């Protein structure tokens, strides 16, 4: 049992009130990472005191947990309430989970997290549940006139064993609301968990399978019009002229307007990413009518002034990257004397890897509802950064922050795309201009060609081996447009005496953004393919080779800033080696192994490829994960399966290319995504059992899958794959 403080400097993290109809409500900070020892944090972030989640216990015993974290598909809407319910020690069958609205008196802040959600909220959610449980116990102790220590709980019932008395939480809830919030509360021992570590179904499952309106695109309001935008067809272009005569005359069309979403003097913040400041919007009664009218627009475009107007193309970009890679780069880490070590190496291996831009392609395209009046702005839709976008809308419309209300809906996928809320600003400006409630909808083509892409990357690795096949020098030099992918302090940094990490970048007018497991999604595959090749050159088994390096990093690490825990890294490799029977692959199976650390979690995979009807198929992927305590195991397995399929799919098939600044793919007939028949036939996920606080799971399973795929393909074909998507090297699956 651990004790945690519920306040800091006399400010409480929680607040309790009596419900009007009876029962108790406890408000708390959903996103706080309250530490048991607040001495560590002198300056507590203000948001830790903002009460944005609550739990309500009605007199009927039903516990409602209001989660401010919207769902993008990582199942946080189920797993986070599970943590609250665990410490509350209640009956999960009596728990109802609701999505909290933004900007009411109670909820002042929301952030839709990625993989970090659980990690950041773990302590706060436990404390909230623990506090409510403590107050219920106190209420029972007072009612029964017995010592607090003698009041116990189990699945939503209070007990006093000596006297045989008991009461459901609902019966004590109103009295508990009168109890002052305790200064500290006891949390359960991890070994006593009854809800955490058990699989619980998605709380929205029934609504999803019956097609209930949950998503932004499903939102509608009385009198709402539909709006769609026309953006420049290529990066580097801006609007020159509009002739909307024909479009305006079409049935159902209310207006065609020029939308200055981000005027020149507007200062963009990171979540405003947009290459297209000025757009044309068609507003009408129905989606189909607006789509048709959009086609009738006569639009002229012109290059942006200066270098910003230079049209990019994939071929030229590749030439620029190759040329830049040959130039000196920014040093990020150096251990020992890499050049001297390369000079004396018996063998030097050098390989370069590339990957294209990727679109996020959430199945639900970008959209947002806006109703802007002179008094206020009401916005509803799928967004991960409401608090940032609130500021953007305020700045753009000149409305004070408290007049802006952003409500979040369930999101049809995120993968990083909905961190960038330009569409929300665009919707607000359109509504303001046409003076009507509107829903802005991006067509798939709009969505795929608008930007915010995963950057394109290029990395060169060099390894020096001595006579005995020991890795004595390692050099990674990576770049990209416009960001570089190298993490200088990740493995194998710390495991090699002579180590050098360098990075470079090139500018471009193509807009980019975070994409599931940023940078790791590329660099992991490159690094893990390269290590495979190095292991082969050293005459070693690929897993044994990595374990040897990790042992070195554990026993006698080089340098002090190594990001990873070598023992946990080795742990997942050993687990996947044992579970897959690595040493004895079945007849005809080509195997590739891979391991990676990112977002505080460790993942290792073995991928089995087999020939079937003259083609190669991924028969099975074994996956071992160390992400600390697994809150909701089956949901965690689902996330891992998705990450693996996503990793394989994008490495194999996907990419966005450019010609004269224009994306060459604008829908799924050109932009290939992995499909049923190409997905692994089986995926087996194993978790390392430990009591470490939970860490990310939405992103970590993806990056290693690329390496495992490349390494299995090598075994199957005898050919190494350096350039994503691998299909560009004439390889297919299934």
């Amino acid at each position, binding site marked *: 049992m651990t004790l945690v403080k519920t306040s800091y400097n006399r400010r409480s993290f929680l607040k309790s009130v009596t419900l009007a109809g009876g029962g108790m409500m406890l408000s708390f900070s959903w996103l706080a990472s309250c530490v048991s020892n607040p001495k560590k944090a002198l300056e507590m972030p203000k948001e830790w005191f903002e009460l944005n989640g609550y739990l309500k216990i009605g007199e009927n015993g039903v516990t409602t947990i209001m989660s401010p974290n919207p769902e993008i598909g990582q199942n946080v809407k189920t797993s986070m309430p599970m943590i609250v319910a665990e410490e509350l020690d209640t009956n999960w069958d009596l728990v109802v989970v609701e999505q909290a609205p933004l900007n009411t008196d109670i909820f002042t802040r929301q952030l839709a997290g990625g993989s970090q959600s659980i990690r950041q909220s773990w302590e706060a959610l436990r404390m909230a549940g623990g506090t409510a449980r403590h107050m219920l116990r106190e209420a029972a102790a007072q009612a029964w006139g017995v010592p607090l220590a003698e009041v116990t709980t189990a699945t939503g019932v209070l007990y006093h064993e000596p006297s045989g008395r008991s009461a459901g939480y609902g019966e004590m809830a109103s009295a508990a609301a009168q109890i002052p919030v305790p200064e500290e509360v006891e949390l359960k021992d991890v070994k006593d968990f009854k809800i955490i570590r058990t699989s619980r179904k998605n709380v929205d499952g029934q609504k999803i399978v019956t097609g209930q309106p949950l998503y932004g695109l499903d939102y509608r309001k009385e009198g709402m019009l539909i709006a769609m935008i026309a953006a420049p067809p290529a990066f580097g272009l801006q609007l020159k002229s509009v002739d909307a005569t024909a479009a305006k005359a079409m049935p159902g069309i209310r207006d065609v307007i020029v939308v200055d979403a981000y005027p020149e003097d507007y200062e963009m913040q990171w979540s405003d990413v947009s290459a297209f400041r000025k757009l044309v919007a068609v507003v009408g009664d129905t989606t189909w009518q607006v789509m048709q009218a959009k086609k009738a627009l006569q639009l002229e475009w012109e290059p942006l002034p200066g270098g910003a107007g230079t049209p990019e193309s994939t071929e030229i970009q590749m030439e620029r990257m190759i040329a830049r890679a040959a130039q000196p780069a920014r040093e990020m880490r150096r251990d020992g004397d890499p050049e001297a070590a390369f000079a004396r190496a018996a063998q030097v291996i050098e390989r370069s890897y590339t990957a294209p831009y990727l679109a996020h392609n959430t199945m639900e395209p970008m959209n947002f509802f806006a109703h802007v009046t002179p008094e206020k702005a009401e916005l509803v839709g799928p967004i991960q950064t409401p608090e940032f976008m609130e500021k953007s809308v305020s700045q753009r419309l000149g409305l004070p922050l408290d007049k802006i209300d952003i409500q979040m809906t369930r999101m049809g996928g995120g993968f990083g795309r909905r961190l960038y809320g330009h569409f929300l600003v665009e919707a607000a400006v359109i509504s303001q201009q046409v003076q009507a409630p509107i829903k802005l909808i991006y*067509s798939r083509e709009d969505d795929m060609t608008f930007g915010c892409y995963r950057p394109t990357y290029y990395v060169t690795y060099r390894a020096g081996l001595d006579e005995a096949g020991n890795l004595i020098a390692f050099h990674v030099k990576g770049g990209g447009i416009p960001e570089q992918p190298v993490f200088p302090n990740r493995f194998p940094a710390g495991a090699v005496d002579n180590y050098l990490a360098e990075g470079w970048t090139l500018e471009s007018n193509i807009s980019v953004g975070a994409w599931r497991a940023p940078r790791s999604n590329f660099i992991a595959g490159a690094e893990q393919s390269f290590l495979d090749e190095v292991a082969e050159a050293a005459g070693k088994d690929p897993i044994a080779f990595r374990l040897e390096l990790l042992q070195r990093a554990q026993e006698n690490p080089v340098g002090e800033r190594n990001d990873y825990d070598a023992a946990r890294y080795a742990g997942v490799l050993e687990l996947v080696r044992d579970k897959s029977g690595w040493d004895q692959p079945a007849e005809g199976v080509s195997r590739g192994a891979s391991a990676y650390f990112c977002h505080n979690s460790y993942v290792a995979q073995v991928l089995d490829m087999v020939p079937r009807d003259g083609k190669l198929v991924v028969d099975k992927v074994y996956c071992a994960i160390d992400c600390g305590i697994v809150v909701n195991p089956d949901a965690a397995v689902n996330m891992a399966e998705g990450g693996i399929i996503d990793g394989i799919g994008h490495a194999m098939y996907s990419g966005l290319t450019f010609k004269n600044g224009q994306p060459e793919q604008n829908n799924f007939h050109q932009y290939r995504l992995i499909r049923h028949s190409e997905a692994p036939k089986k995926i087996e996920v194993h978790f390392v059992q430990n009591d470490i606080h939970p860490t990310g799971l939405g992103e970590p399973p993806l990056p290693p899958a690329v390496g495992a795929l490349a390494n299995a393909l090598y075994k199957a074909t005898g050919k190494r794959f350096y350039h994503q998507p691998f299909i560009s090297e004439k390889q297919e699956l299934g």
Partner: protein
Amino acid sequence: MATFDLNVNGKNHQVEVDPATPILWVLRDHLNLVGTKYGCGIAQCGACTIHLNGVAVRSCSLPVSAVGSQAITTIEGLSEAGDHPVQQAWLEHDVPQCGYCQAGQIMNAAAFLKNNPNPTDEAIEAAMNGNICRCGTYTRIKAAIKTAAQSMS
């Protein structure tokens, strides 16, 4: 503009729309049946799958004028109580991640199973290949289809 009498989920509806309007937008914008999703608009992703006389079709590419009196079934009408064997199997396997593609996946699977009560893995893959799941729930979808097949037989 023209008037069309449609039979959707067993009910009759009259809509006045451009004859070229895809049934997807008639359902979503005119009948407020938003369970059928828009994903690509060009019959490439399967998110908009509905049944036309029991056969799975892509509603984004089917003009309202081509429907006539054929019965339309959407995810909202697949079962009265939301308990079609395919829906139940989806819940049992906890298939959805973001969930956006799942209505289309379920509709496609339900139509497929009617004519293929005992499908092989390869047949499932072939039948489902037109339905993209960006979240990568393919292995679960396949398992759920097998469960549904069993409970339907």
